[in-house]
């Protein structure tokens, strides 16, 4: 038997009661927008059916999926597993101000040389690398000083969060961390000008032990949130925060006087040799932390290269400008991926050049010219033995010490 009985009600629309097609079939009808429905305790399988949300409603899972084969590109954090370190290749870097360290990770220090950052092979199960911040002294933090690890997410990559609108989405950040110090550190989130901000505690209960953290943050319906190539969202772990910038953990997004830390929080730079490790950082839409999304290394590297590229033996081709430029050659250097913005550029090392007839070495940089492109740039190289003006000029391998750094970081 099949059929429907429709009961019209004056205030809530209608209630539909559907008869089952078989003895085991179950139909659940949600009668009103504010009501909920729960499937019974028997295992249920939805076959050849579509779940549809009426009107402006949406369907959300209230607990995490059990499969680890989740849809890709959930994670808004780039290099969350700390696998890529183009700038320092695993070497320790002393933080002097605002310094990019491992790819996409910006270390900040109000006072120079109080801590270092390094890629580490100490990692929890399932990960190969982490980022470690190490205190270089026992420094008493000034009232307005901050020491932090940050990733600034490009606006395009969080545009779907709908922040600053009535449709702002909840997000969850998850990560593994360990510290030689117990106590509270601070997770901090903000918009581009930090006029909207949110803090949450990161409590280390046991020293030197990897701990998994999951922090769910409500969407911010207010403020201005950029959704273009500029700064979309700050995601920070604040390692030390002066008293001026400490306050209670957020109960919601704030536009009041900014607080970067939780009252009484731990200070990494206050103890010489103290460490803070972090890896597996994931930031995703929704109220549930899903398993870390392991992207292929090449994919992750390409994502990083939108913001920074270190080219060894750069594949440059150009034309000798001869006497016009005092022996320079104007060379074109292509970028591996389209950069976020027209980048800054630096050149180091020694280049070899070939014009089809002879080689020359020992060249140095003469200048850099923008070319107004996010796809490639032009540089001028002084060729030690100047080629004839108009000759084609190619850079080629010279023992691996010629480097071009290209940066379009946020």
């Amino acid at each position, binding site marked *: 038997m099949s059929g429907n009985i429709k009961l019209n009600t004056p205030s809530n629309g209608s209630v539909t009661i559907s008869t089952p097609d078989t003895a085991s079939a179950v139909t659940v009808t949600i009668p009103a927008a504010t009501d909920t429905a729960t499937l019974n305790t028997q295992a249920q399988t939805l076959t050849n059916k579509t779940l549809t949300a009426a009107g402006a409603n949406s369907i959300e899972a209230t607990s995490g999926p059990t499969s680890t084969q989740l849809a890709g590109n959930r994670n808004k954090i780039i290099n969350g597993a700390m696998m890529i370190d183009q700038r320092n290749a695993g070497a320790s870097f002393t933080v002097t101000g605002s310094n990019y360290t491992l790819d996409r990770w910006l270390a900040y220090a109000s006072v120079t040389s109080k801590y270092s950052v390094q890629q580490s092979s100490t990692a929890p199960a399932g990960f190969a690398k982490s980022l470690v911040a190490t205190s270089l002294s026992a420094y008493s933090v000034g009232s307005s000083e901050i020491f932090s690890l940050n990733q600034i997410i490009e606006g395009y990559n969080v545009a779907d969060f709908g922040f600053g609108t009535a449709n702002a989405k909840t997000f969850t950040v998850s990560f593994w961390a360990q510290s030689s110090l117990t106590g509270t550190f601070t997770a901090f989130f903000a918009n581009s000008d930090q006029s909207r901000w949110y803090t949450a505690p990161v409590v280390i209960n046991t020293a030197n032990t990897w701990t998994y953290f999951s922090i769910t943050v409500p969407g911010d319906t207010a403020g201005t949130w950029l959704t273009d190539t500029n700064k979309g969202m700050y995601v920070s772990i604040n390692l030390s925060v002066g008293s001026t910038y400490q306050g209670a953990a957020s109960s919601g997004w704030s536009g009041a006087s900014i607080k970067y830390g939780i009252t009484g929080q731990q200070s990494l730079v206050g103890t010489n040799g103290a460490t803070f490790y972090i890896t597996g950082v994931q930031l995703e839409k929704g109220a549930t932390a899903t398993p870390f999304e392991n992207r292929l290394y090449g994919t992750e590297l390409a994502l990083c290269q939108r913001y920074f590229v270190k080219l060894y033996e750069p594949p440059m081709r150009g034309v000798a*400008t001869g006497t016009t430029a005092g022996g*320079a050659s104007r060379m074109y250097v292509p970028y591996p991926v389209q950069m976020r*913005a027209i*980048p*800054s550029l*630096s050149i180091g090392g020694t280049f070899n050049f070939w014009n089809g007839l002879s080689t020359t070495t020992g060249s140095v940089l003469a200048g*850099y010219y*923008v070319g107004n492109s996010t796809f490639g740039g032009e540089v001028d190289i002084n060729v030690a033995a100047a080629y004839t003006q108009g000759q084609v000029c190619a850079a080629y391998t010279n023992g691996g010490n010629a480097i071009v*750094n290209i*940066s379009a970081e946020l």
Partner: protein
Amino acid sequence: MISYQQWVDPITKELAKCVKRSDGWFIPYAIDNTDYQQFKIQVADGTPLEDPDGNVMTQEEVDAFLKTIP
């Protein structure tokens, strides 16, 4: 301490559309480039900017120059 220097295009002999920072980076005049945003803030606040010959520009010269770039 960071400083900046204007740069000349060796072919056109005109000011290049970039500035050289004292750590060796060339920074284009591109409004979405955060190094460029920082450059404008810093030189407006007194960070030294040299002309192509290495002479430190006066603040009046810097302010006038800033009005000519994006």
